[in-house]
């Protein structure tokens, strides 16, 4: 029998071990790739949510029926009962701007020094990869009266309201 190729055999074995280890390393690296994809989706979702609120806020009267300030001014101050929200103007506009995305909307404002957070649109419990987008609007008695809302503001009062949207993909 030929016994002269031991070193070559060892080299071949070494190369095989290296290749096996490399394939293992690549397979394991998919664990790192997965959260990257999830975060990339979160970044995109957060941007889309912020953009949707910004578009509603700064849109001209010709492009939207009611802008964000008018939608918030029209709120009747009543708590909604799931699954129906009580801010239909805003819900309609958001569902058009965010197809395939679910969202809850809360309004936060201070009254007599106390922070109030009220739910106005409820679409269910957010998933674990939900993101939050915020936009601030300022209400005066005039804007509220124009929209027939339930905010009881004085003529010399302004109220800053945080529109807090929690968005998630299903």
């Amino acid at each position, binding site marked *: 029998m030929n016994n002269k*190729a031991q070193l070559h055999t060892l080299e071949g074995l070494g190369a095989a071990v*290296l290749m096996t280890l490399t394939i293992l390393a690549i397979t394991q*690296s998919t664990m790192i790739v997965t959260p990257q994809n999830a*975060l990339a989706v*979160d*970044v995109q979702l957060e941007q889309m949510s912020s953009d949707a609120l910004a578009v509603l806020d700064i849109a001209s009267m010709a492009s939207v029926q009611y802008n964000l300030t008018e939608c918030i001014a029209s709120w009747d101050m009543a708590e909604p009962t799931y699954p129906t929200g009580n801010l239909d103007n805003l819900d309609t506009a958001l569902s058009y701007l965010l197809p395939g995305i679910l969202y809850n909307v809360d309004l936060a404002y201070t009254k007599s020094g106390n*922070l109030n957070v009220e739910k106005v649109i409820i679409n269910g419990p957010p998933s674990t990869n939900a993101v939050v987008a915020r936009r601030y609007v300022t209400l005066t008695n005039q804007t509220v009266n124009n929209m027939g809302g339930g905010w009881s503001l004085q003529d*010399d009062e302004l109220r*800053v309201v945080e529109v807090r949207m929690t968005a998630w993909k299903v």
Partner: protein
Amino acid sequence: MESMRKNTKGQWIALSGLVISLILIGLAALANQAAIAGYHSSNAALEFPKENIRELNSHTRDNARIIKDLSFEINSTSNETIPFIFEQLFDNYSTQIQNLYASHGETADVSLVSINSTNGTFGIDDIDLIFVNITYNDGSTHYVSQPEIIEVR
């Protein structure tokens, strides 16, 4: 076939295996680096409060104009001066902003520095610029604009 069996010169085959292995190791290292870079860039985009700062800035600008209009409305039915009313309303706005940002762990402060008038009087067409200091801090990002000059005419 017999000659191949007796051939012990397999260096090229072994060397090829080694080269392929090294190439695969290089590719794996690159794939890992790309994945980690993607993770960090996505994480940085999520962590950096770009929208919060932009919103604080633009909302303050919008409010300066709202407050100016409201000041003249109030002035028409009261004895207070325009600068006094403007200051009161702006302080009230600043307090509300502080409370709202504090509710999600951020500090934001908008304070009125001065109201600029073209000719020293405070008619509705005379007030042209508002100087405001804006600061924002969420623990990792600190933003300051002192002063932010807002055109309100």
